């Protein structure tokens, strides 16, 4: 029996050390003068803008992915970050468990595909830039359409309905002739812009411009989300998450704000979908597996739901981890094949040692701390 008690205690101290270390960092951050924070933030942003240059990343040791084009990976990662920031509004702030978030991504991507691709039946061939706002608007509308009947449901029921929604979109993409199924849409135009010598800025080979574009949009979206969460809207969302009945009785029009959470989250996913389509040039039904919804949800929880920085870190790390396994062989086994096994393992370990996520919102951290105490008392 002693053996079973021993190891957790030893691990506990290691974890505690880590935890204290992080707390110290967080403490320093909060007590640092304003300019220090701005400088650090600027440095981080510059770092990420510089990241996709080989002259820079070759010095970063094991960070670049061996089995895949690092710039491509960065683009994928940035899309996941954008999605995690969007889903964090719905799950983290408003507390609505949305398992079908990737469905909105699909709506965004397909809107762009249908309206711009020559292989679409509509033959509109509109430019990419014009279609982006349409895609965002349409995903918002689809969010409102899904939300209006379903946001009266709570908890588990909402999760089931949103899961169904994502599947509906996927099945429509697979089997509807209008959406072309596996054959998909090709020749989707890229974003506009040219170099001085006339070469298009957003080309086929170089993924860097797309990454920079997404990075810029992430910054804008984060500013927007921050504005929302530090206002009446954010307070309404959190109050709904905390106690929906009490929120209603304190005069919060809960349905309206839940719908707004859904619509804002959807809009961000729509934007991500449009960016993805503009980069990929090709959209077909295989891009929108259910697994993606789950990965993003896992990313939000992994990073710390209810915290914007947490969502960014979670989305980035999860997407990166999955790609990092590509091209690594161990004892003749291609690790990439088992990537979700590792992913699952990491999640399980996380949930044991840090259930509130990597960078939880301070409130969550307090809550879990309390629960910890309760458990100990209970024993």
């Amino acid at each position, binding site marked *: 029996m002693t053996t079973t008690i021993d190891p957790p205690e030893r691990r506990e101290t290691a974890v505690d050390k880590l935890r204290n270390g992080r707390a110290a960092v967080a403490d320093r951050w909060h007590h640092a003068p304003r300019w220090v924070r701005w400088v650090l933030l600027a440095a981080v942003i510059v770092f990420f803008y510089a990241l996709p240059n080989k002259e820079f990343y070759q010095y970063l040791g094991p960070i670049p992915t061996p089995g895949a084009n690092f710039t491509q990976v960065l683009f994928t990662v940035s899309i996941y970050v954008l999605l995690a920031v969007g889903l964090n509004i719905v799950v983290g702030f408003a507390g609505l468990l949305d398992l079908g978030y990737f469905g909105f991504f699909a709506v965004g991507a397909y809107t762009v595909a249908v309206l711009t691709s020559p292989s679409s039946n509509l033959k509109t061939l509109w430019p990419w830039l014009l279609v982006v706002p349409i895609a965002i608007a349409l995903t918002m509308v689809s969010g409102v359409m899904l939300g209006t009947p379903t946001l009266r449901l709570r908890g588990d029921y909402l999760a089931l309905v949103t899961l169904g929604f994502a599947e509906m979109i996927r099945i429509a993409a697979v089997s509807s002739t209008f959406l072309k199924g596996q054959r998909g849409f090709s020749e989707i135009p890229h974003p506009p812009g040219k170099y001085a010598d006339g070469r298009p800025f957003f080309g086929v080979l170089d993924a860097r411009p797309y990454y920079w574009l997404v990075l810029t949009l992430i910054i804008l979206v984060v500013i927007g989300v921050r504005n929302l969460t530090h206002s009446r809207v954010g307070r309404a969302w959190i109050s709904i998450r905390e106690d929906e*009945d009490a929120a209603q009785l304190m005069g919060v029009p809960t349905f309206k704000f839940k719908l707004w959470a859904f619509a804002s989250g959807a809009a961000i996913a729509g934007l991500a979908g449009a960016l993805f389509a503009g980069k990929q040039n090709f959209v077909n039904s295989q891009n929108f597996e259910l697994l993606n919804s789950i990965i993003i949800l896992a990313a939000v929880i992994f990073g710390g739901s209810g915290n914007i920085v947490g969502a960014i870190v979670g989305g980035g790390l999860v997407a990166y981890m999955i790609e990092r396994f590509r091209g690594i062989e161990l004892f003749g086994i291609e690790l990439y094949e088992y990537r979700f096994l590792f992913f699952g393992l990491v999640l399980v370990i996380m949930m044991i040692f840090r259930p509130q996520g990597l960078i939880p919102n301070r409130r969550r951290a307090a809550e879990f701390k*309390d629960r910890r105490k309760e458990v100990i008392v209970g024993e």
Partner: protein
Amino acid sequence: MSDTEQTPAVPAQAAAPAVETVREREPLLEVDHVTLRFGGVVALNDVDFTLYKGEILGLIGPNGAGKTTCFNAMTGIYQPTEGQIRFRGEKISGKKRHQITRMGMARTFQNIRLFPEMTALENVQVGADAHHKTSVISALLRLPRHWKEEREGREKAERLLEFVGIRKRMHEFARNLSYGEQRRLEIARALATDPVLLCLDEPAAGFNPAEKEELLQLIRQIRDQGVTVLLIEHDMRLVMGVTDRIVVLEFGKKIAEGLPAEVRDNPKVVAAYLGVPDDAA
């Protein structure tokens, strides 16, 4: 209609000097022959009383008498099976809960229901937001309305926290406040919605005598600011000490109504509620 004439007439005249606020006799909330059934269970049976502007009305009764059910019907959580509830002359049923709050009715909860992961200040700000109009667009673009309402809400919240005496703790999370502070915070949050009528559901539950005394003072102060108070309470001393009138429920029926002294001497009430030896509680 008959109830508005019948109930107040006699005691009001008799007690007018003692209970001066009741003189106005302007009905604020009318519970008009309300019956509420859950399947076969009759939770409220033809309950009928009126709450007048400026008074403190106590709603009492033994456990399971239907006090909280009545309370929930009044705040729009349950729809009456028969009869209706009018607040400021308007029917409550069919209105959304947040609309009822905006009409000027606020409440606290028997088992505290704060937003535990928000600070005390934020909790009160949510209440203040009931009358704000900032929505996604103005918040996203930081339009002047956002700044104006944010400042107003913040000032109001700080003022109310000061009023209930927990201003020092305003940046503390609600879950970290002590029990008494949480009860006070609930009152501050309810007051932030600018209520005409404040409904307190057993606000003194779990309080010691000193805390109860402070609460009494607080309730009186709230009334003095022109807010009508409906009080559900177990503690008879508290009820007798602060209310202007009392309505007694038993098994979902109103068995008595009147001034505290009258109710105390009413044999029905004594039998139902005060008959137990812990009269003085």
